[in-house]
């Protein structure tokens, strides 16, 4: 007998339908899976066998052939366990069920339980696009699948439940669709916890307001990581569409916690400097999202920037430029979204204490220069703010005025973003994304501002590129100030955040 069960798989971020065809027929008892299965799919045989037995059904002593169609695409993962088990039981007529119109997904445990799988949100989206209404998914994935409206999502905890449901006993009740809500999630960190660091806080606000990438240079213990972690708390909350994007990527990557629904907090990813290029962009025979995509709509924090391998920093260029990353492998190519704010941190020299008032630096000027040049031009080119963060003094930690809360800063950031949205009319979203042409059009300094720029280029030997970047930053500062023209004061402040344009200042 033959049975056909509908299932789906994910390639890149998108899902496509898969038919699980099961034939049980004569011949020596055997269990064969065809259709380019990987090892996890092959091992399904043992899980399926045990799960069927332990759910009080029988595995027939006949030749079982499972075909995963289309047969020319490589399949991976354990999500076909459940459709295969259902297919075997239907093919041997142990159950009588209508199987078309329902998509089945789930890994089986040996006792017949159903375990969560990855990529369910993508599959649900694809199912809706294909007009398939019913989805039986592992219970821990149900909330995620329910984010897609117009679908009946049935959460399954065990194979037995699924079978009874398919036979019409209606033991599974569909999950209610969670209403769209834009409530900001509770934040577990806050900018008020950062003591001192006035300039760095201001720079963070500007970075958040204009979507600018930022590099912090400072001795160990200056609080660079602490500042970076708090950047997501002053960015505007995720919109519903952004939240779905973030959740979908997490779902495919398998980083979505079981049972959770939509991710409302902006992602913060901090890969270690030993991370490989493949882990950064995403990889595997069937590519999965990497760190840059997991940071989509959020913050990618690279601590100890010069310690990262050159090729790892090199692969950041495409996502920084285009907001997407393309992962090409022999068997398939995938494009993942990767629009993130880059926050990088580094010591000023190998020992970390150059320019530090608290400790003496042990490095030679040549060592310091070499260390600084390890951050290559093309990458630095994409970073609008570079600031020097000092060691925090005890006075800062114990005394000082109470620092501002993230919510207050976020309110200013959102006002500035609103100004930008109106200006760019949806072409781009923030100042950091301005092309050179747009920079010329939208970043017009007033007369004083022009005079200041001329003086700065001459006296501080700023390059033409530095000039453009300073203009862009000044645009964001002006947006925060709510001023239309760019003033000399705003430009003068912007120049402060361009430490790498001033190698002499960094080197002393």
């Amino acid at each position, binding site marked *: 007998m033959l049975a056909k069960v509908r299932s789906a798989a994910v390639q890149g971020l998108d899902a496509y339908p898969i038919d699980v065809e099961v034939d049980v027929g004569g011949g020596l008892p055997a269990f064969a899976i065809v259709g380019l299965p990987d090892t996890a799919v092959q091992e399904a045989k043992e899980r399926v066998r045990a799960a069927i037995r332990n759910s009080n059904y029988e595995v027939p002593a006949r030749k079982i052939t499972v075909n995963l169609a289309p047969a020319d695409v490589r399949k991976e993962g354990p999500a076909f366990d459940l459709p295969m088990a259902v297919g075997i039981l239907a093919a041997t007529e142990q159950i009588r069920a209508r199987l078309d119109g329902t998509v089945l997904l789930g890994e089986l445990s040996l006792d017949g339980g159903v375990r969560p799988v990855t990529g369910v949100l993508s599959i649900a989206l694809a199912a809706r696009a294909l007009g398939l209404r019913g989805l039986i998914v592992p219970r821990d994935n149900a909330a995620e699948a329910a984010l897609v409206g117009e679908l009946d999502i049935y959460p399954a905890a065990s194979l037995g439940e699924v079978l009874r449901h398919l036979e019409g006993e209606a033991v599974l009740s569909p999950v209610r669709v969670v209403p769209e809500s834009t409530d900001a999630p509770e934040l577990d960190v806050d900018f008020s916890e950062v003591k001192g660091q*006035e300039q760095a806080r201001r720079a963070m606000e500007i970075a958040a307001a204009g979507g600018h990438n930022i590099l912090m240079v400072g001795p160990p213990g200056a609080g660079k990581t602490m500042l970076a972690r708090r950047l997501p708390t002053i960015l505007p909350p995720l919109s519903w569409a952004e939240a779905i994007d973030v959740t979908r990527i997490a779902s495919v990557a398998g980083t979505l916690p079981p049972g959770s629904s939509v991710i409302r907090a902006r992602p913060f990813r901090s890969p270690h400097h030993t991370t490989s290029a493949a882990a950064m962009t995403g990889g595997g025979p069937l590519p999965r999202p990497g760190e840059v995509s997991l940071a989509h709509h959020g913050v990618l924090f690279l601590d100890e920037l010069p310690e990262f391998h050159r090729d790892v920093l090199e692969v950041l260029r495409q996502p920084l430029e285009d907001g997407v990353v393309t992962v090409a492998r022999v068997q398939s190519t995938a494009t993942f979204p990767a629009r993130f704010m880059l926050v990088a941190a580094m010591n000023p020299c190998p020992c970390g204490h150059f*320019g530090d008032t608290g400790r003496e630096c042990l490095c030679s000027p040549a060592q310091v220069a070499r260390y600084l040049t390890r951050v290559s031009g093309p990458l630095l080119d994409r970073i609008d703010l570079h600031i*020097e963060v000092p060691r925090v003094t005890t006075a800062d930690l114990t005394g000082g005025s109470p620092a501002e809360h993230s919510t207050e800063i976020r309110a200013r950031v959102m006002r500035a973003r609103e100004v930008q949205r109106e200006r760019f009319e949806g072409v781009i979203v923030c100042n950091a994304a301005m092309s050179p042409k747009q920079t010329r059009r939208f970043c017009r300094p007033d007369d004083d501002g022009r005079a200041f720029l001329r003086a700065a280029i001459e*006296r501080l030997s700023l390059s033409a590129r530095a000039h453009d970047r300073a203009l862009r930053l000044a645009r964001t500062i002006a947006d925060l100030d709510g001023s239309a023209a760019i003033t000399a004061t*705003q430009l003068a402040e912007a120049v402060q955040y361009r430490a790498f344009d001033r190698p002499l200042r*960094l080197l002393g």
Partner: protein
Amino acid sequence: MRPEHIRDAIAIITIDDAAYPARLRAIFDPPSPLYVRGELRPADESAVAIVGARRATEYGKAVAEHLAGELVRHGMTVVSGMARGIDAAAHRGALAAGGRTIAVLGCGPDVVYPPEHSGLMREIIGQGAVMSEFAAGTEPRPGQFPRRNRIISGLSLGVVVVEGRLDSGALITADAALEQGREVFAVPGRITDPTAGAPHRLVQQGAKLVCSVGDILEELQLPALARPAPEGPPLEGIEALVLAQMDVTPQHVDQLAQRCGRPVAVVSAALTALECKGRVAACPGARYSRRDVTTMMDR
């Protein structure tokens, strides 16, 4: 490291040449020949050496630069060793004031050491001279630097030690100066600063303590010129407020904002403006120092 060889125009001056510096000829072991790039003038006989620590503080570098500028203004030539820190600050101070300066190297006169001073070396050759007792192509080696120190003091009427630890080469130069019968001056620091070790020991041994260029001129029995009027237009508003809170020891922008009681954004902008006007200098770590030591030393 590959030395930069520039073999053009190296003059070889022996002790019998008229061009040989008279004051250097008088020491116990004058070098011969001397390899010279640039030009030696008779006026260079009135020279004062400024030497000190390579790892100098901003204070030390600011004082060395200021003293060099003042000495030049009084018609003196500034001699030093073109090392990092105090030496380089002394040369720069003399060059900035449009005066003459001589660098005595511990390597061949065509070898740039330290390598980041290639630009400085070109300027010194243009506005004075670079000299060495080592032939072209000689690599810098540790033993050669104490030897060249006797030339630094030998060329000079006196040696000013600005900063140095107790094992500093500046003390060797001071010893050489005493053996050659030249004056020794020392600029005091703070007793908690390791870089104040050498000048303080010299003061204890009888060197003259220097608070301003007048102290040097007095000892050399030269008249001090009247101080020129302070340059630049007076500052107003936030810029004046920020500058008033600054001194030669650099402070971070956050610190200055706190002392001024103004938002860091405003103070940052004022600092850039002051930097454009040449009134403050940016230092590593987003710190700023005042450049006009003159007015500081008047107070």
